[in-house]
């Protein structure tokens, strides 16, 4: 039994390996890019808009509201990153309804790459909003003693992000594969439906956690902005 789609290798030359994970990831990216380009080609602001534009607007509004609820007051800046994560993971987990499809998120390399991008995005947004030294100062909050623990938490939460997504999706794939050999008639469908639910929840969790980590990094400047707003309003 194959544990991950990494083990299905199509082409191998030197250190370049093209496996099932890469192929599905690129197919998924092409599908999403072409699909959204087709939908957004003729946007309208009339009372009557096309069905697909309505779907996209709902998704974008939903992500914006969630980001704002967590405490980032200007979600336009972050939706390009967090929305991409959420849409990619959600789409790759949702497409398990297709036959012979193994989600690329059931390979540890994909989830590790996604978690690494979160790991790099946190200092990026932190530095770009509040400045280099103000961002470094968040490492010695509340006291200087917490410095090693803050660094450890940065690393461990990246690992946790990667392994959580990988484990959830991989377990769904493996359970379906095991059940197919034991009770191949109806039970795998039920487990696949459960896999759809956990897949969407995991995509949501990944987005939410990325937002929470970014919000923790930029909280200083957010606080300052709120204070200025309060002073202006009084």
């Amino acid at each position, binding site marked *: 039994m194959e*544990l991950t789609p990494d083990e299905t290798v199509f082409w191998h030359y030197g250190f370049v390996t093209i496996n099932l994970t890469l192929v599905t990831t690129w197919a998924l990216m092409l599908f999403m890019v072409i699909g959204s380009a087709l939908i957004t080609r003729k946007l309208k602001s009339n009372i009557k808009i096309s069905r697909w534009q309505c779907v996209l607007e709902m998704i974008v509004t939903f992500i914006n509201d969630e980001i704002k609820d967590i405490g980032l007051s200007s979600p336009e800046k972050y939706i390009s990153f967090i929305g991409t994560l959420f849409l990619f993971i959600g789409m790759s987990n949702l497409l398990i309804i297709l036959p012979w499809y193994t989600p690329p998120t059931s390979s540890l390399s994909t989830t590790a790459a996604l978690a690494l991008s979160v790991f790099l995005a946190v200092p990026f947004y932190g530095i770009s909003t509040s400045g280099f030294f103000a961002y470094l100062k968040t490492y010695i909050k509340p006291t200087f003693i917490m410095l090693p623990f803050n660094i450890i938490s940065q690393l461990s939460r990246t690992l946790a992000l990667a*392994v959580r997504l990988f*484990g959830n999706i*991989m*377990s769904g794939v493996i359970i379906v594969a095991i059940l197919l050999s034991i009770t191949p008639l109806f039970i795998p469908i039920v487990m696949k439906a459960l896999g759809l639910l956990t897949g969407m*929840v995991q995509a949501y*969790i990944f987005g939410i956690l990325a937002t929470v980590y970014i919000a923790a990094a930029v909280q200083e400047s957010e606080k300052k902005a709120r204070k200025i707003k309060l002073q202006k309003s009084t």
Partner: protein
Amino acid sequence: MDSTTLIAVASIITAGITTGIGCMMPALSEGKSVASALSSIAQQPDAASTITRTLFVGLAMIESTAIYCFVVSMILIFANPFWTHIIAK
């Protein structure tokens, strides 16, 4: 018993125990959290959306501990490093 058998026995037993205990404890805590979330929704139906969102995030965090145990037992069964080391010899 030679070392191959020892490693196989230890891996299988450990994998079973890992998944067993690792599913038992998160199941208990998930039950507790769902129960308290349900009672608080019953008390304040207006806050249902906030409670549900927090509940889902919390459930996924709790469940990830079970998932870690599952990943460890999967590694022990399908991709055991000690087993491959012995076999390669």
